[in-house]
């Protein structure tokens, strides 16, 4: 096999992949930094509730805690998909 080794493709460079993965995780962790510990749980429970009505995934929900002149604002945004609502709404 040794003689044909040079024909093998070199492995793809991985630095680009590392950068992309870090960009996403760092942005996500920064958005929840300094926020209450219950926020991820709240996010998941909200997702469960919303899922009863529309198909959305975790990435569609954005929770932010904004500090605005002395008070905190919990900001929640849900990007709804274009398609039909879930066929089986909660009863």
């Amino acid at each position, binding site marked *: 096999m040794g003689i044909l080794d040079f024909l093998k493709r070199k492995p793809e*460079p*991985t*630095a*680009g992949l*590392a*950068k992309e*993965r*870090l*960009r996403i*995780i*760092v942005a996500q*962790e*920064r958005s929840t*930094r*300094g926020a209450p510990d219950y926020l991820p749980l709240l996010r998941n429970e909200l997702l469960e509730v919303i899922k009863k009505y529309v198909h959305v995934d975790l990435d569609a929900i954005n929770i932010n805690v904004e500090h605005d002149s002395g008070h905190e604002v919990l900001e929640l945004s849900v990007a709804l998909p274009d398609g039909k609502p879930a066929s089986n709404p909660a009863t």
Partner: protein
Amino acid sequence: MTAEIIVVTSGKGGVGKTTTSASLATGLAMAGKKVAVIDFDVGLRNLDLIMGCERRVVYDFVNVVHGEATLKQALIKDKRHDNLFVLAASQTRDKDALTQEGVEKVLDGLSEDGFDYIVCDSPAGIEKGAHLAMYFADMAVVVVNPEVSSVRDSDRILGLLASKTRRAERGEPAVRQHLLLTRYNPARVANGDMLSVKDVEEILGISVVGVIPESEQVLAASNSGVPVILDEASNAGHAYHDTVARILGEERALRFLEVPKKGFLQRVFGG
């Protein structure tokens, strides 16, 4: 004048905090500053080995905090520079040996003794020792390797520096944050196998104060208990000199970011 407190921190272990603390403190001393470098890694003392003074430790940081020794007794004068002192970590297993008040007392004492810089070598992690090392800082040197877990952890540390320090709690001007990229391998960056300086700066949103190339001399220096900044023959040493100069306000271009060109003989014979 009060002393400027610099924390050398990273979150992740093994990225070069102690190597950096030793070289940074030595470099500042070489610039004529009176410097103390403190090991905050209670239970895992190591700065003394890197500084080459492990056999001269009599009293340590915790002894001073508990009033069992004076600062003067515990400070170990560097054998190469008269204006450089080491305060060793305690080898006690008691993680609560350090308290915020105790640390503050020691830092104030050093400030009163006319020290210009106090370098705090943080332990890895985000537990108490790391918290105390950064709490009183005026400036932070966040050591990061071009590698995913190190970059992520350093972002976490940047967040803590912005919220869990005395400056943050008092609403004073923020801790000045510097990124120091260590173990940088230009050849692997050129091949696309390692994050580049630019990549790390973009991800973390702050610029580097220095880039230390991966170098065999770093191990050789720690083997012999001589901070690598004193190795005139190593690029890592030169890169630390540049970093110290930038911290002192000088403008210097980054070096050692390109793949070293091979000479004719090396190209023919390899190596």
